């Protein structure tokens, strides 16, 4: 049979279906992006006028035009750095145990199942746990440390799951190569497996932190203040964070505070996007180093 390059009826139909699906996918994507763009645009319109150096460096005030967000930025910064400092070592250690040592033991399976469950627990439950455990039982009070510990609990399941995923991508040939040189299991994990998993671990951590930085409910539950005229200066200071300050302003009846809330949202969004950008840069750096 000779080769024909003209389209047959069936190929026309298939090509049409192909185009149709491509169009539908594009439409959905555009709709999602448009919703986001409209949201950012409205917030920008409301808040941009309030966004200046004074707003970033002032403390809250009863007069909307004097109010600032400095205390909440510092609070969020403290909380998120501490959350990372708690969630990263614990999460990586837990994932390493489950993936490298626990194997198929019933205990490991039980823990595994419960971590998957924990990832789906509403954040306010973590707030109640934090209140009972850190604030009351452990006597840490309504402090930055209590807040960070609570958010670390919230972040842990995601950190553990993404670390396990990353550990699994390390080829067995690398492990064998290390063992064959007389490395112990721990040396193999520490010098070969974990460094190779670092991009994946960091990505998971930043994703978890991006969620934690926007959390309001668990921090309100453990008693983060909604009005606070100073920035935290130690682990034991009372504190507030950006989303709580925004929530506070939104709930005020005065229109001027609404502008403050919008400006606060812009600050929070900028912070989030910066974190994600850092994650991408870090991941790319380590991936290139590994190549």
């Amino acid at each position, binding site marked *: 049979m000779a080769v024909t390059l003209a389209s047959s009826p069936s190929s026309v139909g298939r090509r049409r279906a192909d185009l149709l699906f491509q169009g539908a996918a594009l439409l959905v994507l555009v709709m999602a992006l448009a919703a986001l763009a409209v949201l950012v645009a409205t917030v920008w319109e409301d808040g941009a006028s309030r966004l200046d150096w004074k707003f970033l460096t002032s403390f809250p005030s009863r007069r909307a035009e004097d109010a600032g967000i400095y205390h909440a930025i510092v609070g969020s910064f403290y909380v998120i750095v501490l959350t990372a400092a708690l969630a990263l070592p614990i999460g990586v250690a837990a994932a390493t145990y489950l993936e490298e040592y626990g*194997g*198929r033991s019933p205990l490991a399976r039980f823990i595994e199942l419960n971590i998957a469950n924990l990832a789906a627990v509403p954040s306010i439950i973590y707030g109640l746990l934090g209140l009972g455990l850190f604030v009351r039982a452990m006597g840490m009070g309504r402090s930055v440390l209590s807040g960070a510990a609570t958010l670390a609990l919230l972040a842990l399941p995601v950190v553990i799951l993404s670390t396990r995923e990353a550990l699994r991508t390390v*080829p067995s*040939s*690398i*492990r*064998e*190569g*290390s*063992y*064959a*040189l*007389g*490395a*112990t299991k721990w*040396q193999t994990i520490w*010098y*070969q497996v974990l460094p*190779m998993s670092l991009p994946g671990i960091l990505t998971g951590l930043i994703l978890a932190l991006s969620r934690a930085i926007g959390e309001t409910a668990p921090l309100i539950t453990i008693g983060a203040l909604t009005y606070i005229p100073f920035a935290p200066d130690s682990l034991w200071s009372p504190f507030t964070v950006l989303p709580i300050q925004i929530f506070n302003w939104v709930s005020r009846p005065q229109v001027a505070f609404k502008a403050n809330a919008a400006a606060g949202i812009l600050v929070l969004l900028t912070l989030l996007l910066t974190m994600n950008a850092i994650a991408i840069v870090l991941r790319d750096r380590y991936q290139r*180093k*590994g*190549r």
Partner: protein
Amino acid sequence: MPADTRALPPALSSLVRPGTAPVDAAPVKIEVDGLNFYYGQKRALDAIAIKIHAHRVTAFIGPSGCGKSTFLRTFNRMNDIIPGARVEGKVLIDGHDAYGPGVDVVSLRRQVGMVFQKSNPFPKSIFENVAYGLRINNLTRSKAELAERVEESLRAAAIWDEVKDRLNESALALSGGQQQRLCIARALAIRPDILLMDEPASALDPIATQRIEELVYDLKKAYTIVIVTHNMQQAARVSDHTAFFWLGRLVEYDRTDRIFTAPAEKLTEDYVTGRCG
């Protein structure tokens, strides 16, 4: 066991069980007796005995799945990592049972080095790849000594001239043949007694293969080498002794020239002449 997967080799003509007799006057480095190996329920090696001589190159040949790689990996207990793997019998290395009680696997692997089929350099610099084994085993006392040992190992693996100006570049930028020689250098750096090579040239082009073969020939002065290969010509070229495996059994073990010119077993002859397998 179902008969179709475990068809027994034809009755062997030799009166002596293969592998029990030495084939050389050189001292015995590895002595194996009554070795059975199981992956879960499946028996992969069946009552293997062999005496491997020091400072010789011993080649393991046989069709895919005959157990030669599995056997090789019992010498440095690499199979320990595989879940469900089980070993019976003795693997004596310089008279010490590798599977005996109180054996330090880490110490065993330091003395029985290994090069794998697929080159597996660590995603680090060329220098760090070779230095890794020295560092983790605390084998050098100073930076200068470390650099010296790295150079010595790279020279021994015949790759020094190609990489001396770019020791800090990633090992993954090297060609396949260079990566494999780097892995050999890495294995040599910790000065093992025995070097195991699991099809070290199977993924390489003919020129890179030839370099590896020349290297093996040079290295036997200092090491006892056991090499698994699919390539009959390679076994004939590089090895002093050859062991032929078939379906988890050792069929014949003898001097390489005898295996290839006057094998005692019909099965060996059929395999080395390409009539079966």
